């Protein structure tokens, strides 16, 4: 199955946060139908088994399969390739960086503070999800 780099999955247990993240992505030009949502890591994993979504914006702290557990399952246990996985959290970065270092995962972490600003294709979506940014650029032409 070929991954569709124009799709993205938001994983967060708070509906409010998912909604804001969706609005930010839509504001950057991502079509609403290309944005998927999951309430926790397990729900995200189940969705990723059924559908290949290569871009994942995932909360760090969740009760059922947290962000690092989900990333560990995808990257270490299943050795999946071609995924763009970004953790976002309100937790101090140092704590997450330490937790990531223990697992050996090398994935970007961003603070939820960024949800307060509009996102653009180049500034943010381009940094974390370059293939998605390329898709958005092609759409504009």
């Amino acid at each position, binding site marked *: 199955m070929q991954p569709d780099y124009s799709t993205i999955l938001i994983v967060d247990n708070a509906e409010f946060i998912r909604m804001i993240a969706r609005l930010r992505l839509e504001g950057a030009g991502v079509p609403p139908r290309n944005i998927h949502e999951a309430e926790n890591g397990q729900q995200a994993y189940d969705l990723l088994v059924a559908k290949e979504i290569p871009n994942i914006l995932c909360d760090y702290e969740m009760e059922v399969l947290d962000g690092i557990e989900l990333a560990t399952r995808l990257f270490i246990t299943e050795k999946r390739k071609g995924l763009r996985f970004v953790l976002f959290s*309100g937790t101090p970065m140092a704590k997450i960086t330490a937790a990531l270092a223990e697992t050996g995962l090398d994935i970007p972490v961003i603070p939820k*503070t960024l949800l307060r600003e509009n996102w653009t294709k180049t500034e943010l979506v381009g940094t974390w999800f370059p293939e998605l940014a390329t898709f958005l650029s092609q759409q504009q032409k």
Partner: protein
Amino acid sequence: MYSKVADDTSRKDIRILVVEDVDFNQKILADILAERGWQSVIATSGEEALALLAQDTDFQVILMDIGLPGIDGMETTRKIKENQATLAIPVIALTAETAAEQERLLAAGLDGYAEKNFDPEQLFAAIEKHLFPAGANRQEAVDALANPAEHLDLNFATLLATYADEAILCRIALAFFADADKELHLLGEAMSACDRTAILACCHSLKGSSTIFTAKKLAMATKELEDCVRQGKKIDAESAWNKVLAAHESLRKAVKSRLGLSI
């Protein structure tokens, strides 16, 4: 090296010069600094920063992007440190560089560095190290800013400017209250059970959502509760919990009256 102006650590009108060329980064940094009640003045290049400092040196800290176009952050810092009028202002590098590179920045004359990841706590820590070198008055200054009564229930102007559409704002408000009500219920249970871990988890979530929703009073009340629990101040925690409930109710009324929602 500390700014001579920062010696008066109880002052709230702290001004920070942010030297950053990317518009988005400027906005997010100003927003984060405003959380502490600090004023930010933006310079979009090294040249602009130097021109500004030639007219006005009343800054307690300078946040310096290193990868600036034109005169880069290192060169700009060197010129700041060559000038008697500005050499005492601490310059903190904003960098995404490795630890080895960060050490090189310090060796080159910068006073500190913060990772360019927009983590508010990390940024505050890097700045406060220079603002409040001995820790004196820091708590007093922070407490004064943390008084929930001083803050607005909700910043409608910011929300409308961001979302530009009242219908979207209504959807956001409904989602916010759906989550916040759930968190408050869990928080109440955790408070009754004196479950420290659960209280901190709920506070963390509620504080984050409130901040993004621009509900500053609720965010600050939640932070106060979180701090009390972390410090084991049980009686203060009870009082802070009541402030959280009051701030939530006050926010609900403000949103109901402004957006006409049944919440």
